[in-house]
């Protein structure tokens, strides 16, 4: 269409074309109503705070481009551990309890650029993580993704009037698969071993943390199309996917790795894209809740019966990058792809409702919208942690609202 430059508009045209709207919308009440509707975009059920990735304002936060929190794991003592990705991997610990309520950086892993879904709590003051090369960061002399043990206290004394702070120690355990990165890591503390998966050929291995030796069980997917996740149940059974989106199961008792008939549930024609994007084991139901990468579905896998059940699509986003289970069985998740504006959702198993809660927004310690998250974990006091994944990232902490009386195990205080 040719645009005529300088043609004077007819003012009456604008007035005539103006759609008929209620005059009430023009007055003060109308504007307030409008703003109430707009505000509904944010998560208002429960609330968020965030923490900068530093001990206090005496210190700089973890550097920009290296602060995307791509792994989180919570210990039973209430401490939370995180690992970042970017130009360098950092491992940090968050102590939610007074007098701390703060983050303490533990270690920066020399030469490592990516730690995604690969951090597990081993024991008090000790975590194990696995690395891979961030896109474009693979050096010619890169040996492959490595397993590390990071130990450290991070917190002493008092963080209010004095702030002595400890750093962690790093022990490089091994490079499980030469020339490949490590895509997933889970731990079986009872057997003192971690299970891992390489990022290309899906080489499945386990590493014995006491004997410090590795055993490999072969490639699950030479087509490199597997889900970059491993899932573990309390009895130590490990699940993943293999070629053709089939589920895989490893039985540690029998030391048996088997391909199952079950596949990732999806819509017709969408199997090409279906992957496990995130997962969480929910102990009340004994189910694995799984977020889908291709379409943003939420589904469950019953590890006993192997039944899969598609619960639905909580938002219009096409990935579910982070999932966590609250103590009452509710499942909270973040849906949204890279570069997206995520939405948080909840699945309530008691009512079977899948609800979109909106865009996260923290108001303490910083007023900050939450747009991208790549990790989640539940704390022992009911808080849910979400790891922001940005150029400069924060730890988001969500305090769910209490469920209705009689629902779930957690009751509002008397």
């Amino acid at each position, binding site marked *: 269409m040719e645009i005529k430059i300088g043609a004077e508009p007819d*003012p009456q045209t*604008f007035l005539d074309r*103006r759609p008929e709207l209620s005059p009430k*919308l023009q007055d003060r009440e109308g504007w307030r109503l409008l703003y109430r509707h707009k505000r509904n975009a944010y998560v208002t059920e429960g609330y968020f705070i965030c923490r900068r990735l530093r001990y206090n304002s005496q210190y700089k936060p973890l550097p920009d481009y290296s602060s995307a929190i791509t792994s989180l794991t919570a210990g039973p003592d209430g401490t939370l551990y995180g690992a970042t990705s970017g130009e360098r991997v950092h491992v940090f610990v968050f102590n939610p309890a007074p007098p701390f309520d703060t983050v303490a950086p533990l270690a920066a892993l020399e030469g490592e650029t990516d730690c995604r879904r690969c951090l597990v709590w081993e024991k008090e003051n000790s975590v194990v993580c696995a690395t891979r090369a961030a896109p474009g960061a693979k050096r010619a002399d890169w040996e492959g993704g490595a397993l590390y043990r990071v130990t450290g206290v991070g917190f002493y004394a008092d963080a209010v009037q004095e702030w002595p702070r400890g750093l962690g120690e790093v022990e490089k355990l091994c490079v499980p698969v030469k020339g490949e990165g490590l895509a997933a890591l889970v731990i079986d503390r009872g057997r003192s071993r971690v299970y891992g998966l390489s990022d290309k050929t899906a080489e499945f291995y386990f590493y014995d943390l006491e004997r410090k030796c590795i055993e490999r069980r072969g490639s699950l997917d030479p087509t490199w199309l597997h889900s970059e996740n491993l899932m573990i149940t309390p009895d130590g059974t490990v699940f993943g996917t293999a070629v053709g989106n089939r589920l895989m199961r490893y039985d540690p008792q029998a030391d048996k790795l088997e391909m199952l008939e079950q596949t990732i549930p999806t819509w017709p024609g969408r199997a090409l894209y279906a992957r496990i994007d995130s997962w969480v084991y929910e102990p009340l139901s004994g189910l694995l809740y799984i977020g889908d990468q291709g379409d943003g579905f939420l589904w469950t896998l019953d590890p006993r019966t192997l039944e899969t059940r598609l619960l639905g699509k909580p938002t*219009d986003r096409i990935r579910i990058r982070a999932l966590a289970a609250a103590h009452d069985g509710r499942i909270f998740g973040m849906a949204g792809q890279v570069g997206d504006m995520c939405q948080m959702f909840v699945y309530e198993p008691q009512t079977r409702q899948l609800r979109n809660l909106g865009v996260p927004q923290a108001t303490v310690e910083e007023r*900050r919208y939450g747009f991208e998250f790549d990790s989640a974990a539940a704390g022992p006091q009911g808080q849910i942690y979400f790891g922001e994944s940005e150029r400069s990232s924060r730890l988001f902490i969500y305090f769910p609202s209490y469920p209705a009386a009689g629902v779930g195990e957690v009751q509002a205080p008397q």
Partner: protein
Amino acid sequence: MTCCTTCAAPAQAATSTTAAGRPSARQESAPANGQETPVVEAAMIPFDRLPLSDTCWSLSTGPDDRIYAAACTEHIGGVAAYLMRYTPAAELGKGKLEYLFDIGEAVGEPADNGRATQCKIHYCFMPDPKSGIFYGATHLSGAPRGDMGYSWFGSWKEPHRSFRGSFLFAFDTRSDKILWTDLCYPWEGSRCMALDAERGLIHGVGFPRDHYFVYDLQERRHTDYGRLGSVNPQCIWVDSRGNAYTTDDWGHILRFDADRRRLEQLEIRTPFAPWSEGWHNVSYDVVADPRDPDVVYGCSWNVPSHIFRYRMPSAGRGVGEMRDYGPGLPGAGYKELGTFFSDHVGGLVFGDDGYLYYCASDMIREAWEVTSDRHCWVVRMDIDTGEKEKLGIIKIGDFRVAYVSRAGRTRSGRMLFADVLNKPTRMYEFQPAVDTRRPKVSPPLRMWG
């Protein structure tokens, strides 16, 4: 073409030059406290043929030394922004006002297409003096036609209503033709932009995700450099080497290193009030020093807004130097009900006498929607001494100006201020007196919005 009128106020001749450089301000009738409030002589130029327009967020000098302004319509759905041009005449308010084109139609997103409209240009005008091209990029938040409002978070990438993205247009001021348009940042608006004409790069910040991006004019594509925070900075500026600068939520200076193509936070901040922790101290308006291409003067988008001078680091080393000139409104202290609207500072522009001129609102806001006692002062500041002088408020007849977003100037020293929140939207023309005792300066063409 329209010869605009000065509305209720009779046209005033340009203020005379005085030896002391003090403009001959009129005095309005005495208020209750017995003190008269001076009024600067100015003319109002309303965009009468756009009766629904409500804001003018962008106003810049074009490469042809004429004034370009955006007539924006954000509070009624279904109307796109219009590009305006004004050529001043000897007498204030008697210049030539042109309605150039409907920007929505120009970029292929007509305002009635059911999507959130291309309703604004928000600090995204950039002149290229070499080519004569005037660039502009669009912004949200006008609603689709028939909707009362637009929820940018709730409608993110929604297939039917969502804002399609920021469109860049290249308008040739020599031939009066639109050379090309392009979707420069999908799904989001452009809050502010700066042109690096040498490298052919446009630096921008998107809304609502607050990401920094760079648009390559040769390749016609953008690169995203990640998120800044949650509060959009309102200005990006460039130094003599093509490095671009802006701020994060806390007023830290962020530099985009043009050679390394990397965004980095410098350990220096824009100044803020001592009772504040510096949150929301993003850059609001910034102008180049007429004498040094690596020095800028700016104000923050905060209450109170402080005026600052920032000397950018030479050869990419260090963090530069920051000088705090204090609140933009002289003597402004803590104000319990201060807001970004009632206590706004904007419209920074240099006069030929080297004074920095700007507009500072000083109003009382009783409630979110109600502002009375409208006062928008024209202030001039001596950048060497930091001395500020309130020249007078802008008042045309009974109409009092409240909020000025941006200012532009012609080579002759004529200043134009862009108005926000009046229907139809408008601008104000002002000719400062020149202090002949001061050396004359030639402020450079502003390369950012």
